[in-house]
Structure formats: structure tokens, C-alpha cells
């Protein structure tokens, strides 16, 4: 037996000795449903506190608005399922394509206004075009949903986190944008996307940069001391 074989055999013995029973992960579709239920609960509670936009009934009569909201909701649902599926090692990368048709429809329906409403020119000069409550919805939706998604994706760190995280960023963006469309008059799709996808890029970059250090768990270091 070589030194290398001894080292690996020692690691196997060590891992086997630590093999406590584990709770098997639920299927991705079930975990996606749980995530969407959480999103509905958080944003529903927020709607109860602050109410929906005053002109919601009129806006829902507009097919373009319905399509935009429906497409963002569908993008969020599809991207949630895609992120949780891609986090598993034996699933095809083609799952990444699942939310693309809905996302294309959603992004295509984002109005010109959402590009221009960031700031408003008034007689007193330029002012922020977004109310504080809208911004609060953006932060609340993004932070709570992102935290939930990260927890659900905690196993993906050792596999292909970038792809799963990108899908998670899309899911959170789409769901938050959908909520803002229903709750506020301000069409914030572009800002929501910029915020969430910007955060996703930041997280993916940090993960790539720190990944090696984070993955060198104490267990891993210990295994090399067995030599």
C-alpha cells in the first residue's frame, strides 16, 4: 500500500466514523414551491400593511401590464426551480434555459418609463423618481428572498454555484419586480434587475475569489494531517 493509498484510506475511515444520519433533501420542485410560498407570504404581508397601488384594477385591465406582471412572475417561478435543480450534481445544465422564454418576455415588456423614471425633472431640479416605500419593498423583497435562496442553495458551494446563483438572482429579481408592479405605481423593473443582478455578480465574484479558502474546511485540512 502506497503512502497515497494510506492517506485516502485514513480519510475514508475518518469520514465513515463521522457518518451521522442525514435528512434527505426534498426534490427541487418541492423546495421551489416552499420558496415561492415564502415569497408570497412576505410580499402578501407587505401588501396588507401598505396596500396595493391605488390604480391596480385599471392597470390589470391593460393587457400589456398583465403580460409584464405575468411574465415576471413566471420568470421568478421558473428561475427558482432552475436554480434549485442546477444546484444538484446529477442534473443537466440545460435547466438553465428554463426561465429564458419568460424572462425574455418580461424584459421585452419593460416599459420605456422604467428606464426614465429613476429621476424626475421638477421645477426645483432633479429629484429621485422612486418613493421611499418602493425602495423599501425592493430591499425587503431582495434581502429576504436572497437569504432564503442562499439557504436553499447551501449545498451548491462545492458544485456549480455560479450558474445556480445566477438563476437565483434572476428569480429574486423577477419576483421582487412583480411585487413592486402590483404594490407601487413606480415601474422599477430595470432598477430591480440592476440591483439584484448586480448583487448576484458581486456574490459570484466573491465566491470565485474566496471559494478556495471557504472550501478548505477544517475537515479537509485534518485529512492531510493524517499522513
Amino acid at each position, binding site marked *: 500500500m502506497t*503512502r*497515497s493509498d494510506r*492517506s*485516502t*484510506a485514513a*480519510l*475514508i*475511515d475518518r*469520514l*465513515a*466514523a*463521522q*457518518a*451521522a*444520519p*442525514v*435528512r*434527505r*433533501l426534498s*426534490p427541487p420542485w418541492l423546495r421551489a414551491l416552499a420558496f415561492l410560498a415564502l415569497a408570497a407570504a412576505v410580499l402578501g404581508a407587505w401588501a396588507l400593511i401598505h396596500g396595493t397601488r391605488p390604480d391596480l384594477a385599471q392597470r390589470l385591465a391593460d393587457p400589456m401590464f398583465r403580460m409584464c406582471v405575468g411574465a415576471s412572475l413566471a420568470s421568478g417561478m421558473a428561475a427558482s426551480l432552475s436554480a434549485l435543480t442546477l*444546484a*444538484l*450534481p*446529477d*442534473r443537466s445544465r440545460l435547466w438553465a434555459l428554463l426561465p429564458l422564454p419568460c424572462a425574455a418576455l418580461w424584459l421585452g415588456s419593460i416599459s420605456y418609463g422604467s428606464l426614465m423614471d429613476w429621476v424626475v425633472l421638477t421645477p426645483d431640479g432633479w429629484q429621485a423618481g422612486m418613493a421611499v416605500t418602493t425602495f423599501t419593498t425592493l430591499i425587503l423583497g431582495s434581502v429576504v428572498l436572497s437569504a432564503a435562496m442562499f439557504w436553499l442553495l447551501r*449545498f451548491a458551494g*462545492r*458544485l*456549480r454555484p455560479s450558474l445556480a446563483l445566477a438563476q437565483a438572482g434572476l428569480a429574486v429579481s423577477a419576483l421582487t419586480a412583480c411585487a413592486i408592479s402590483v404594490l407601487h405605481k413606480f415601474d422599477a423593473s430595470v432598477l430591480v434587475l440592476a440591483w439584484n443582478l448586480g448583487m448576484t455578480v458581486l456574490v459570484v465574484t466573491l465566491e470565485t475569489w474566496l*471559494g*478556495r479558502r471557504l*472550501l478548505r*474546511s477544517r*475537515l*479537509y485540512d485534518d*485529512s*492531510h494531517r493524517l*499522513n
Partner: protein
Amino acid sequence: MSEADEWSVLMTRAQAGDQASYRALLRHITPLLTSIARRSMRQPQDVEDAVQDILLTVHVIRATYDPQRPFRPWLIGVARNRIADRVRVRARRHAREVALAPEHETFAAGTAKSDVGLDDARLHEAVARLPAGQRQALEMMKLKEMSLQEASAQTGLSITALKVATHRGLKQLRRVLGDDS
């Protein structure tokens, strides 16, 4: 029962905390992991590191295996992702490294210490004070004049680790001997 079915059963038992099944499973899959790692890595130490990394990952994420699905694609998915990650990290590290050339290993010319000559006893004492890894690397690379490959095969350390240990050992010797003079 086929090998794949057997692995699936062993993993299912391992998820329930059966340590004997888990040990058997990890031993059974090691040759497959080694052959997968060898496709992307040449150095035995790199292959061993990759296999151990995959075993650790299997351990950490064993809850993600669904017994309704075949075990082998799950295992190969874990292996491929970990190996791709290691190859990426290694490529990035190599891009930043510069191979040691003879001129890196001479003493500073300014004080021309090579002309003065070194006190053997002090040199031996300084070498003896080096950490074990650095001392071993220096002895193999500089005193026995072994190649990196030979030293790597003998110690089980990777070539990168040997280069780093040699470089650090020389740096430490320079510092100690330079300060004392």
C-alpha cells in the same frame, strides 16, 4: 445486484447513518474517482488531492442524493465539478507563479558574501533550524540535486509545494545568514 444498484443501496444506508455501508461505499468508489481524476491531472499528488476532495464533497452533500435516481451520475457529477474547480484554481495559480531560476538562488551580490565563504557550522545550524518541510525540500533539491519529479515522487508532495518550500527555505537561510554576518 449490479454495481450501480449496490452503490445506491450503500448510499441510502449511509444516509441513515450506517457507517459500515458508508465505509464500503467510499472504498468501492475510490478507484472510479481516481480514474476520472487521472484524465485531467498528471501528478499523483494532484490526483490524490482531487480524490480526497471528491470524497469530502460526497460526505458534505450526501443529503442531496435521491435514492430514486441512479447513484453513478450523481457521483460523476460531483467528481467533474470538483475536478473542474481544482483545474481552474491550479491554472490560475500557475499563471501567477514564476519558475525558480539559478539566479534566484544565489546570495545577494552587493555584499559579495560568496567570496567571504560561509562558516560550515553556522550553515548547518541554520539549515537545522528550518521547518522540516523546507529542510527536506532543500536537501533533496539542492544537496542531493534531485529533480522536482523525483523529489515529488519520493515525498508525495506536489511540485508546487516543493518549489514553494525550496524558495522559502532559501529565503530564510539568506535572511538568517545575512543578518548574522
